[in-house]
């Protein structure tokens, strides 16, 4: 992907986010939460978006479904193409048709994401009754079927229970059931496992993978956990401070990360082979979205930062010949050396 020109690959990608800019009005000015982000999700595959808290990954996901609260937030540019249709231009009525139907989303906190005063079944039935016009009885049967699909035992009983009667893991399954009820082509999962125990994490991820295979669905997975990405994603986009800094297949990124930030991320993972060693960290903290550094936003924490970094924003450049693996850094060669050091 070159600068300013966003290659549109016709017909292939299910979802294409092109140069998306989502900003927020705040007391201290304008926060450029998402600043020119580009990525695509191919049919049937999983794209993982990785980054620290505050890098804007959730906001891009919310932007796809138009769930960003619009009084403080606003779109300053870019396009979101779903099957060729620009969602940013679609009206609210069209978005409502798409939500829960063609594109579904599940959230981080299963505890609070379900309405406590309605039964689990009711909340699942709601979607199918809305989008597919089923009557109550049919919807209920469908809900029970969905619960079974996501692996909840005794679904005929569970369907009438309230969220507070279920455990965290089960609630997340219910969320998934609710999201899958209308067989969407794209599932957006915003940190679906962060709030869960490790064992449950694995189960939920397996479930998502299973459903993806069975239904031929695409998944846009937002996470800060590299382990999750490794397990589930086909492609990876690494985000920092509102921009994509590296993009490529999972193998490529994990084997040869090229951006200093990505390299730093991998370095800070505890190494089982060298127990007892001090954990490496990336110096400094994520800058406030209101006060991003000029030029390359990572330069305040980058060991390779030079003069050029303060003046020029690096664009994504191809690292491999086929252009599949890209990174945005002025010192790509030097970064290579960095990567070799352990």
């Amino acid at each position, binding site marked *: 992907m070159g600068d300013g020109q966003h290659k549109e690959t016709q017909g292939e990608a299910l979802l294409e986010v092109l140069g998306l800019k989502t900003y927020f009005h705040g007391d201290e000015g304008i926060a450029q939460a998402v600043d020119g982000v580009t990525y695509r999700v191919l049919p049937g595959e999983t794209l993982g978006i990785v980054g620290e808290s505050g890098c804007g990954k959730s906001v891009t996901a919310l932007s796809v*479904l138009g*769930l960003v609260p619009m009084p403080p937030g606003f779109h300053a540019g870019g396009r979101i193409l779903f099957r060729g249709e620009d969602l940013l231009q679609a009206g609210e009525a069209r*978005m*409502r*048709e*798409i*939500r*829960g*139907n063609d594109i*579904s*989303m599940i*959230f981080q*906190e299963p505890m*609070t*994401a*379900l*309405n*406590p*005063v*309605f039964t689990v079944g009711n909340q699942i039935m*709601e*979607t199918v009754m*809305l*989008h597919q016009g089923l009557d109550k009885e049919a919807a209920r049967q469908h809900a029970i079927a969905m619960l079974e699909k996501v692996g909840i035992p005794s679904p005929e009983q569970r369907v009438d229970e*309230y969220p*507070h009667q279920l455990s965290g893991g089960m609630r997340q399954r219910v*969320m998934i059931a*609710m999201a899958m009820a209308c067989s969407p082509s794209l599932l957006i999962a915003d940190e679906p496992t962060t709030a869960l125990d490790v064992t449950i994490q694995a189960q939920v991820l397996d479930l998502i993978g299973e459903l993806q295979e069975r239904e031929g669905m695409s998944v846009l997975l937002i996470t800060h956990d590299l382990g999750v990405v490794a397990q589930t994603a086909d492609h990876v986009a690494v985000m920092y401070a509102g921009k994509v800094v590296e993009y490529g297949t999972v193998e490529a990124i994990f084997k040869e990360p090229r951006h200093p930030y990505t390299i730093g991320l991998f370095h800070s993972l505890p190494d089982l082979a060298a127990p007892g060693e001090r954990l490496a960290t990336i110096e400094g903290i994520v800058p406030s979205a209101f006060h991003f550094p000029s030029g390359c936003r990572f330069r305040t924490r980058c060991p390779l930062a030079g003069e050029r970094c303060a003046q020029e924003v690096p664009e994504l450049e191809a690292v491999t010949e086929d252009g599949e693996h890209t990174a945005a850094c002025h010192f790509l060669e030097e970064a290579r050396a960095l990567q070799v050091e352990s």
Partner: protein
Amino acid sequence: MLHYIIRRVLWMIPTMLGILLIILGLLHAAPGDPAMQILGIGGGGGGEMTQDGADIEARLAKFKRDNALDRNFLVQYLGFLGPFNVKPDGHELFGGDGRNPWGGFLVLDFGTELFDKNKQIGDEIRHRLVEVTLPLALMSTFLIYMIAIPIGIFSANRAGSRLDKLLTLLLFILYSVPVFWAGLMLILAFGKGGLGWLPVIGLHSRGADELEPWPYFVDMAQHFILPVIVTTYGGLAYISRQMRSGMIEVVHQDYIRTAKAKGLGSRAIILKHALRNSLIPVITIFASILPIMIGGSVVIEVVFDLPGMGKYMYEGLLTRDFNVIMATMTLLGAMTLLGILLSDIAYAIVDPRISYS
């Protein structure tokens, strides 16, 4: 659910006993001999004219004996509670001569007025409750919820807009207006001294008995308008504000975002998902404003001269009529308790998170 209700109802019993204890205790704890206060001896107000010397002593003693005020606290408490009558003509257990062994609230005997033995307090209270106090309270509650909920929703929808800010300010001011002053101001404004649109005293105009049923009813309704307004505005302001802030908080919850992500329109989101959740605290709040409303009813009945139970209690206070005071206070406490119970039950019905614990 039934289990829960039964448990709560059973809880009412010790609470009622406690209420009675507190009322009687407070009456006795106040420095000064209640009997002397009642008879107006030694500087207290109300009561009958004082006479001289040893005469007073004798009258005081007889008064105390007749009304069981010379007994110790526990006996007096039992006397009001029942079912034993502890007066001189009461149960033998307490030294009475057995003519009227039973009495007290447990057998629904509220006694007679201290200064007019012919007036049965129970009848009087019933009459007043049905005619005035209950209709006022019910109508007011109904109006409060009817008006406050839409206002709350409306205001939350347009949170931050100028209209919303204005409304919030108005509600806040309304909430701060003292009840008795509001009544007085309305009387000045709408009564004969002002616009003269509405009657301001009592429940019926003079000569109302001679009217046909419909005009009679209209006349009574006219008399009710101002009292209802005054009873309603405070609770209305409070609940509207709660509704609004509750709504705003609910709308920021995650499950609302989930509902939107499912493709629901804003109408369905507000009326189905948000409303149910924001109603819950508002229903429970009713339990806490109820005592205030009932307390306020006394003031309102006095200001508008309505013959209700509140005014009865006030008159009893002025004359220090122990029996009237005990009966009315206990009943008002019971009404409050009942209201709280109803509110709790409603809460349990509406919120599935509460039930069996």
